[in-house]
């Protein structure tokens, strides 16, 4: 559906421009600030552009800080948590979508409840759980804990996508004698690849940017993640804004690239299941 006439174009272009500016300007400010020296960051009145631009913040972040190690940690933890959430969620969502069974409403409500817990409340008890299983400061520990964040929403989203597949497709296969599992893998999953992409992206972003759990459960320098690394530039007496901006940039770029690359799949994925989500 397109707006054909020219005066209509103005109505399209203007709000679009405004929205674009609003979305992008803070990010640009962040990028520009990462190229300023410390003194220029705090001038009153503020300066728009660095003069001259300096890469010292980036070299500090890349070569003198722990950010590269944190980058590795974040990657491992986000990938691991996303993959694990996907595995669990696919089965659970299929169960909710295709079967009616006793306690189904309770189970679904329980999943929803998991989504609603205030973060501050569950940190301390979760710390006890992790510490009991000796999982503090381990990759597995953080991956498991992040499931609390990603699993409920993934199950909820995937349930909707599964429901949008017509039952007839499966029924034909059942009559032919196929097992439920093979139906799941051979028929359903290929059809909701876009939905899976959506869930993967959401989980990845959520765990990549997550701060509070990582702060509580990864106290050793070798295990910390990127958001914590960001906070490390803020010491007791100083906040190295240039370094923080540079590190933020480094932290945001991978996700932006992933989004750009998978954008078409993502939008398509969100499409198919959205009406039932």
């Amino acid at each position, binding site marked *: 559906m397109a707006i054909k006439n020219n005066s209509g174009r103005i109505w399209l272009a203007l709000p679009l421009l405004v929205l674009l500016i609003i979305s992008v300007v803070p990010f640009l400010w962040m990028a520009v600030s990462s190229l300023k020296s410390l003194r220029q960051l705090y*001038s*009153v009145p503020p300066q728009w552009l660095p003069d001259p631009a300096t890469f010292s913040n980036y070299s500090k972040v890349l070569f003198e800080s722990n950010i590269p190690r944190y980058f590795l940690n974040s990657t491992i933890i986000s990938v691991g948590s996303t993959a694990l959430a996907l595995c669990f969620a696919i089965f659970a969502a299929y169960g909710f979508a295709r079967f009616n069974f006793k306690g189904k409403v309770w189970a679904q409500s329980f999943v929803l409840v998991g989504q609603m817990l205030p973060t501050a409340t569950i940190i301390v008890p979760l710390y006890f759980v992790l510490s009991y299983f000796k999982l503090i400061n381990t990759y597995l520990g953080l991956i498991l804990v992040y499931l609390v964040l990603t699993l409920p929403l993934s199950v909820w989203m995937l349930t909707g996508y599964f429901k949008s597949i017509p039952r007839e497709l499966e029924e034909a296969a059942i009559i032919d004698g196929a097992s439920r599992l093979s139906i799941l893998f051979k028929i359903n999953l290929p059809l909701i690849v876009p939905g899976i992409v959506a869930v993967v992206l959401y989980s990845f972003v959520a765990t990549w940017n997550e701060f509070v759990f990582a702060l509580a459960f990864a106290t050793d320098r070798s295990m910390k993640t990127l958001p914590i690394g960001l906070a490390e530039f803020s010491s007791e*007496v100083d906040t190295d804004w240039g370094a923080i901006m540079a590190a933020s940039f480094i932290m945001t770029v991978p996700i932006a690239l992933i989004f750009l690359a998978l954008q078409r799949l993502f939008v398509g994925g969100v499409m198919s299941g959205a009406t039932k989500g």
Partner: protein
Amino acid sequence: MQTLTRDSNGGKMFGFGVAGGGQDQPGNTLFRTLPLMWMNGGGILSEDNQSVLVNSPESVAAIEMYTGFFKDGYAPPSTLENDGLALRRLFAAENIAIIQGSQAEYLLIKGDNPDLDIGVATLPHPEGKQPASILGGWNWIVPAQAPNKAETLKFLAFLSSPENIGFYTNTFPAVQSAFEQERHQNPELRGFRDMLQYARPQPPLANWSQMTQAYFESFQEALLGQPVQEAMDAAASRIQPLIGK
């Protein structure tokens, strides 16, 4: 304190930096206002930590002077979002003429802006009364349940020997004899060393952070326009039930 009024050319340069908000609170405001109250004979709690002093005439007078800098226009309009760090930045950017700070900050400012012509003065005190300063710093804690307790204590004893503590600290050593070391003879830091003899620590109470939070919120209300006595009375009523808990 009355002699500390500055004239400032409004607009670009302000006379005094007031810590009214920001991230490192209530600590930053506490460190800057508690000595003022102490000097005048007030404080948040009495010396024995048994009664509330924050709404006494002496304390209120001190707060009135401090918040007066903002109300009378000597402190920048951003005061309510400025913590110690923001004030230091504004000072280094030559936007504020006077700030309260520690010796670590002095060195950082010189690093930020080496050409800045700055001096250090001790905190002025009211006529006929004692100066006061606040003792900050860090403590070593060994939990009772910790493994390797004996080794830890040995290590701490090593660290707190005069040579080591004088060497490793990035402010002043906690041991008096360590002051004789070379690095602590910096004449620029003289003012800070002189204030040390009047320094008092904060009371080691379990709910001190709740009390100071109550004080800080009332302090901000005063900055927002509430009469200081009223604000401090409100703080006192919140702090009173916390005593002895």
